[in-house]
């Protein structure tokens, strides 16, 4: 180990190391009055800590209602109880800390001490000794000679590795086709969410947007809420820029898209009425409603799946079929070139 890198030696005439700075005495080291002052300062800080604890106790006993709030400039509203308890605790702790640090800085010895380092590398002798010991002990096991044991160890340790993997198997079911299925299918009514009312086309004004769920027998589970929500948007039919198939999936200017973002599954909740854009608040993927939710900005790679809709014999809006592609984010097994 050299003091610096090897190349350093080649420099002619290194600047000499003058050694550490001479020790400078502090005021408290030479002036008894200053020493007394420093001592008092530390004592006052410790005493202030006590006051902080008293404040905490007062806050704990005196404010049992967590609903009362006070308004602090810039910081906004905070709970009264939290404010008093926190300030009490903060002062109590902070003052102990400041007292200890002041004590160390002003009154404890501040002479710099020099200690030596040792090189980490063991001596060559010790290293050789280590290697020969390991070789000797390993040799005494005679693993090389005992082929049968060697192989059976490999077999048993290799096999037992399966146990932790296999025993985690029941963490969850196999995916099967679950990511491709929703509760939508032909004839299922579109129900307002919230509200659970069937909708007639004439209930929707041009420019309005409604969230709907499929008509379910009971309350929707969170798993259903994570895949079934659909946004119903009514435009002037002339605003559409769709091919014939996609146009046939709309009804009187009403078009329906999955609300679950095709990027990472957030709810695509922002609709801009003027531009007919849907925006996902998570990563700002933007979809153009007039062009079958085509991605016009952001990281989403696919349009929002469109739900074909029509009306049933009672005049209520229903799904003309289920989704023709999986809703939500992509996954390995997703065949994005094929309709379901």
């Amino acid at each position: 180990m050299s003091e610096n890198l090897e190349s350093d030696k080649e420099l002619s005439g290194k600047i000499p190391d003058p050694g550490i700075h001479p020790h400078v005495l502090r005021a408290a080291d030479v002036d008894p009055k200053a020493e007394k002052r420093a001592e008092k300062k530390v004592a006052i800080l410790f005493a202030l800590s006590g006051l902080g604890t008293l404040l905490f106790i007062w806050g704990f006993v005196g404010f049992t209602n967590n609903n009362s709030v006070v308004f602090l400039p810039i910081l906004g509203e905070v709970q009264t109880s939290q404010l008093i308890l926190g300030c009490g605790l903060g002062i109590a702790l902070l003052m102990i800390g400041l007292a200890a640090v002041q004590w160390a800085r002003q009154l404890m010895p501040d002479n710099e001490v020099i200690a030596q380092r040792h090189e980490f590398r063991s001596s060559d002798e010790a290293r050789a000794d280590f290697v020969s010991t390991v070789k000797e002990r390993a040799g005494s096991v005679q693993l090389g000679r005992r082929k049968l044991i060697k192989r059976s160890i490999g077999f048993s340790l290799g096999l037992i590795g399966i146990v932790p993997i296999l025993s985690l198997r029941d963490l969850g079911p196999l995916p099967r086709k679950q990511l491709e299925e929703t509760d939508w299918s032909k004839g299922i009514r579109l129900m307002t969410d919230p509200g659970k009312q069937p909708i007639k086309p004439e209930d929707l004004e041009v420019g309005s947007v409604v969230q709907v769920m499929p008509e379910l027998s009971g309350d929707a589970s969170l798993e259903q809420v994570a895949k079934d929500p659909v946004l119903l948007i009514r435009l002037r039919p002339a605003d559409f820029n769709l091919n014939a198939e996609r146009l046939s999936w709309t009804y009187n200017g009403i078009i329906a898209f999955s609300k679950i973002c095709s990027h990472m599954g957030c709810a695509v909740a922002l609709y801009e009425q003027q531009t007919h854009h849907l925006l996902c608040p998570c990563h700002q993927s933007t979809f153009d409603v007039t062009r079958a939710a085509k991605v016009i900005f952001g990281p989403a790679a696919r349009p929002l799946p469109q739900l074909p809709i029509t009306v049933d014999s009672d005049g209520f809006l229903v799904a003309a079929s289920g989704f023709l592609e999986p809703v939500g984010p992509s996954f390995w097994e997703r065949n994005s070139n094929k309709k379901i």
Partner: protein
Amino acid sequence: MKKSEKAAGSVANFVDERTGAAAWAKKNLTKVFPDHWSFMLGEVALYSFIILLLSGTFLTFWFNPSQNDVVYKGAYQPLSGISMSEAYASTLHISFDIRGGLLMRQIHHWAALIFVAAIIAHLLRVFFTGAFRKPRELNWIIGVGLLTFAIVEGFLGYSLPDDLLSGTGIRIAEAIIQAIPVVGTYIAFFVFGGPFPGAVFIPRIYIVHVLLLPGLFLALITVHLMLVWYQKHTQYPGPGRTNKNVVGYPLMPVYMAKAGGFFFVVFGITSLLGALASINPIWLYGPYTPGQISAGSQPDWYMGWLDGLVRMAPNIETHAFGHTISWNILAPGVIIPGILFTGMALYPFIESWLLNDKLEHHLLDRPRNNPNRTALGAMSLAFILVALINGGNDLIATHFKSSINDIMWFSRIGILVIPPITFVITKRICLALQRKDREIVLHGRESGRLVMMPHGEFVEVHTPLDKYDTYKLASHPQPKALEIPTHDESGVRVKRPLVNKLRNRLSRAATEQVAAPSGDELHELEHH
């Protein structure tokens, strides 16, 4: 003998007769630690971890990690009668019915933010001063591991209350898992116990958050500190400081008082933050449901750069052979962070390979004295900062009334352009600072005093440095670039000539610096 001394003596006797620790304890109580403000950054991380353990334990007494549905009937009126998970309801209970509960929640959240911030600040200090070099590479790798786990731990922690914001974060995490080719769908179904969201992820991340990861932290932090202790702390270069000694203050009493006191300072400031600055007011977000979202959804800051990368990713997916690969998720969510963290962990070995440097280093570099490394660090920071800014692009757009599309395009181009520019500028600044140091050593500091010479010329008087400052500014190492021959004496190409050429080239860049003034130069100047 005083009574207290007698009592201490008998305790020491009891312990020593059973452990023989007297010599060991004496040696360690007088252990020397170098002093510098930047050495406190790691301490802040350690102390916030202790604060997290204490406040977290308090929260577990009331938090109920369950996704069972309950109807809320607690003290917070606006949510009364609303159906929600027990996890969310118990978080409301802690916030509104337990005295000091909200304070503890806020202290816990603030301490988590400070924990990650302190780890990163500590990491930057270690990087920019070269403290990661041999023999401390292992501790660097442990540190990178701690940072990774801290980010995960923080994310799991703020996901526990099961509010609308945290649920959205979990949804995104699920989409990243699901995007992993071949096994992603299966892993997602196993983690969530079926299709998203399922009813098991809160109890599962709870046990990871309160048992598994804290256990890992305890083990890694213990090894980290034991290595610091055993290898002794690095020190900044300066008069009297060499690679073979350590100059500073003894553990007892100065460091005990300073470090112990500093713990109380950190805890006190965290408490005041918890008291005064509202953080994660989950009662305003409402319970999680996958069908809803609030605009301006933001993760905690240490996840923001990841979110920013995901936001700016180009929308590329591969659809082939009946399979879908989402590069728009994999690249920003898995591949780039993987490269960043692997590169960071391996950096000590890369640098030692570039300079063929196998020596122990206990003296730190001033950042300017290793311009290439400093520039590399600044470049990485610039990359993360652009990503972080893009992570808040929606808030920037609404606060500064600008177009979100423009901000996104700025980030997409900026993340490619700004880091290299930062590299070049930082390297130039370092070289300029080195030149300035050299100038000051050789010609002294400007005194501001003008003197008119007999022939009418005005000159400024320069005050020469004292020997301590001279040594401080002129003693840094001057590593040489490698010159591995690509051909041997007889003109035959050696093995792997291209690798050698690249290594020579990179080491030239890594060693580029302004020569430190030598004693001869100084001597010469003193005499003319």
